[in-house]
């Protein structure tokens, strides 16, 4: 166990330089590029004097390395700057909107895994069959579908034509009250207070955007599951297990699937990158009040502090998720990481 503990610590330590790099890039994006934040912050009525004054107030007249140190200090205090358009601190805005994005992303991923993993396993156990062909077709179509287009078409079919989906405006219809804030996840919060009507209302709003995102992530997961299962099934230990007369279910799930899981989980890391990006588009289509639509609104009015805060938050989230995935490896496969490099 001691070995496992150190390897976990090493992995966490490895994330630190990456995070530092992320901060550097985000700093470069904010400060070192054309465009003058001082002019922006001073407002439309600014005279050259007030611009200079704002520049000094923001610390933009100092040399870049010094600005970077100040920037680091602000980050450590959780200060991502003020949003020009709303006047509120970027961090509070992001924190209040993050649960909405996470709820959408996570439900989409769960949905996607529930469909993609069995599909990949089925396709791998019957290579060349019709189910394999369908899997292949679905996978190729899935990657090629622009998320925002899928979302718009789903709205047309399920809201306009069939009328079974609620209007695509936000997390909850206005006839319901928001559940009391505990986790910020409406489904969990509503279930906690036992308000099943609100729970159902929130679920109805969530289904379409979650399906949109899930369709997009289906492809890489199903493809990787199929490939990993195929290579696991053709390996020597499976032949041995078959020769030893183990049941087919035990061979498939106990041995092949468990070994195929590692590459699938690795793909999840890449899938997260796609999902966090696609999230922005889906949130815009469904007017979902998450951090993605916040960033889009900020982009349109050139609210740089808000956009950079969003980029930084997303990068931190992504690094964190990858860390969790890496740590999950050692749970799935005890051989992994314990040897130590």
């Amino acid at each position, binding site marked *: 166990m001691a070995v496992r503990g150190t390897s976990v610590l090493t992995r966490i330590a490895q994330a630190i330089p990456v995070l530092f*790099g992320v901060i550097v890039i985000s700093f470069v994006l904010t400060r070192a590029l054309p465009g003058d934040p001082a002019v922006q912050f001073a407002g439309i009525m600014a005279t050259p004097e007030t611009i200079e004054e704002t520049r000094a107030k923001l610390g933009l007249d100092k040399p870049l390395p010094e600005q970077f140190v100040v920037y680091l200090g602000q980050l450590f205090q959780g200060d991502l700057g003020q949003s020009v358009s709303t006047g509120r601190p970027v961090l509070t805005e992001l924190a209040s909107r993050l649960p909405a994005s996470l709820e959408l992303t996570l439900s989409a991923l769960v949905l996607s895994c529930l469909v993609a993993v069995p599909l990949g396993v089925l396709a791998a156990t019957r290579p060349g069959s019709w189910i394999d062909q369908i899997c292949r077709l679905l996978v*190729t179509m899935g990657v090629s579908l622009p998320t925002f287009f899928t979302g718009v078409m789903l709205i047309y079919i399920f809201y306009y034509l069939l009328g079974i989906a609620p209007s695509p405006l936000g997390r909850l219809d206005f006839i319901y009250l928001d559940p009391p804030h505990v986790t910020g996840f409406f489904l969990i919060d509503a279930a906690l207070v036992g308000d099943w009507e609100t729970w159902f209302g929130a679920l109805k709003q969530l289904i379409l955007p979650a399906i949109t995102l899930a369709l997009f992530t289906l492809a890489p997961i199903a493809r990787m599951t199929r490939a990993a299962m195929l290579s696991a099934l053709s390996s020597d230990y499976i032949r041995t297990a078959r020769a030893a007369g183990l049941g087919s279910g035990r061979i498939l799930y106990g041995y092949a699937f468990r070994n195929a899981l590692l590459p699938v989980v690795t793909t999840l890391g890449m899938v997260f990158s796609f999902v966090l990006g696609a999230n922005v588009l889906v949130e815009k289509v469904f007017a979902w009040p998450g951090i993605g639509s916040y960033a889009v609104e900020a*982009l349109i009015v050139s609210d740089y502090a808000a956009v950079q805060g969003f980029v930084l938050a997303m990068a931190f989230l992504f690094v964190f998720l990858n860390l969790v995935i890496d740590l999950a490896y050692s749970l799935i496969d005890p051989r992994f990481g314990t040897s130590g490099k």
Partner: protein
Amino acid sequence: MNKIVSSATDAASVNSAQANAPATPAKPKSGAFAHLVYVLRENPVTGLAFGMFALLIFAAIFGPMIVPYDPLATDAASVLQPPSFAHWFGTDNLGRDVFSRVVVATRLDLVISVAAVALSFVIGSFLGAIAGYRGGWTDITLNRVLDTIMAFPLFVLAMGVVAALGNSVANIIYATAIINIPFYARLVRAEVNIRRNAGFTLAAKLSGNSDARILAFHIFPNALPPMMVQVSLNLGWAILNAAGLSFIGLGVRPPTPEWGIMVAEGANFIVSGEWWLALFPGLSLMIAVLTFNLMGDGLRDIVDPRRRT
């Protein structure tokens, strides 16, 4: 020296063609050609993808000349009309012909993605080749920088870059290029690295070639086949990326016809049932991406038959 390299790759492809040859009755005139015929017969979808690619190129070059209407001409008399004989894809809220706009948009979308991929191809190859050849600190530094870029969700990084550089089509291209560089740089680095001490490299060195010459003319050409696969897959992704950026209001401004922005405009009318505004640009976008993805898969079968999934 080049001959050694090319004859080596020829020999390799002849070998792989011979391995597959029994399945094809085609006379093995040239190894590569026979292999191509074999792959196309095995997977006719690849042939279809190349056909669709030709169609896209045709639309991009001749599109503005062959469309029935001016893509920017408004017509207040025929607003929001469903598809008909006069307007194949219907008209939008300003009476513009959707078909003309969709066809004309092909050029802009292809130019953005091709330019972005070309940029990342050149920069990525250059960085990757140097890092792979020299190794050591150059290699480590490059890898750290690439890791950092990959630590961002890529679409989000593209948003940030466009926000910082300013909202224009050129910056969409730069942003898309930046997020694609790591894929090329890593690929080239790996390909160069394994050939750094290969026999033909040492022979070239011994006969007095400079490092730059060896890298550019002896080692780098070997990385091209896998690069072509990457380019094709990347083109589809770059189109999606650029269309996504313009969908959220970055880069291309209305009234310029572009698929992403047309879907965004059409999305406002979808809740009132005008489906053709968003459907046709969205479908074209999908078909373009599908074409590049299928082509990439097909190219991979031709270049590297072992990696089929």
